[in-house]
């Protein structure tokens, strides 16, 4: 039976530790990058939406700005344009569990 010296065990232990910690660090880092990317996209959508909230609907004679890019911004709710006597405004509609918009 081959005997392993103390130094060899130590080296294998160090290698194992570095491998596990390196892999874990890389995985956590990837998760953080994905979350940061999703956060950045959401922030851009929010800033675009903020410009539409007041006076961003344009004249009633023109077509309203599209809202498809803002789909899914608020969970369970959908944005839509509404014509009022004081101009075009944004409103929210609840999406029921069955997908019907109310």
């Amino acid at each position, binding site marked *: 039976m081959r005997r392993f010296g103390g130094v060899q065990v130590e080296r294998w232990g160090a290698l194992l530790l570095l491998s596990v910690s390196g892999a874990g660090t890389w995985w956590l880092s990837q998760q953080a990058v994905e979350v940061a990317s999703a956060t950045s996209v*959401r922030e851009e959508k929010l800033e675009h939406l903020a410009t539409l909230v007041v*006076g961003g609907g344009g004249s009633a004679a023109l077509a309203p700005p599209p809202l498809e890019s803002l789909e899914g911004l608020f969970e369970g709710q959908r944005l839509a344009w*509404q014509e009022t006597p004081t101009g075009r405004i944004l409103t929210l509609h609840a999406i029921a569990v069955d997908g019907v918009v109310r």
Partner: protein
Amino acid sequence: MSGQTLFRSVRVQWRWLVDSPLLVATWATMAMGLLTMVQVARTLRSADRVRERSGQVLARVAAEAAIVRLDASGDEALPIEVRVGRVPVRVDRAGVDWLLTVPLPGGGAWRFSCPRLRGAAPLAFGRPLSLGDPTALRSFVGAPGEPTELPRLDAVALAHAWRADHIAAFRRDVGIALLNFEAGTELDDFVVDTKRPRLGLGAGVDLVVVPGHLWIESGKEPWRLWLEHDLTLVVQGNLYIGRPIEVDGPGRLVLATTPTRDAVAFADRDGNGRWSVGDRTCDGQPFRGAIEGGGNVYLGLAGGSGAPDVAAGLVVGGELHLRTSARIDGPIVLGHGLTRLGAPTAVLHPTGSKLFVPEREAVPGFVVSGPQRPGLLRPYTPNPASGEEPLYLAAPGR
């Protein structure tokens, strides 16, 4: 062996920290862990900030929809709760205004106040350039195709407005016209103190009437004005702008000129500041009244240097006289036309960066139209800072 001898015989060497591979691996693991913790903490902080912003924007959208819905249905039964999508909005009174409260999912609430407006402001204040005279359209490239109905001044508001001769920032000056033209003027000349960043108005004062001509003297240094809220300066005469105007603070400035029965508007084609042969009245009637007329705007003076860029709106009741190219940030409303003095290539650059939302805002001093309506939402502060209030009314300058 004594304690002293024991410690003296032990010498710490830095090589002990890196001698063992396992120890080195441990240090590397700790470093990687620390870096990962920093990265994750930064990501979580960013996500938290966006979550708060999302709550704010959602609350704003819901509050806007709720107040418009309420206004349409009447508000006799306040306080009430209006549901917009899945967001409940509570609407209550706050004096003559409305108070809207939108609860947050994690606790707390966003609160907005909403003023009640008597009507909509003139549409011209929502556009960079509006022309009232069809003949003036020919002097512009890319001008709006149809003439616009011009804003009208509110006579009742003007009668109760502060007057420039009661404000220290404005002084009468009988010689200012002679510094710029060959002859003086018949109406009073007021010169604004361009070194003052504030006009010393009372809290909430948003309309000032200048009972004569207003001069903003020539100079390279701009007139920097701090405005806590919107302000309209109505000049019952001519407006002479000789230096750039910059406005700091959340308020917007509107400069409006109006001809009077004793001072009519005309196109000063030779730029001598008074009625002379070759000039043309704006109303097509024979010239009458003060020789220098009224309601005109002179953008750039003969002795001035540089472009008189104006970070304000201009409502010209008479003719606009342009000496050099100028940038105007607020809405420009021309009652008649534009006359070029000096450089024949002088151009007006309306940027449209300080416009109003006519359906949801009022412009001080101008008549509103249409039904009552909610104004723009503002974040609600229960104890707003009081505006400046002078102890004594400023005496007119000598």
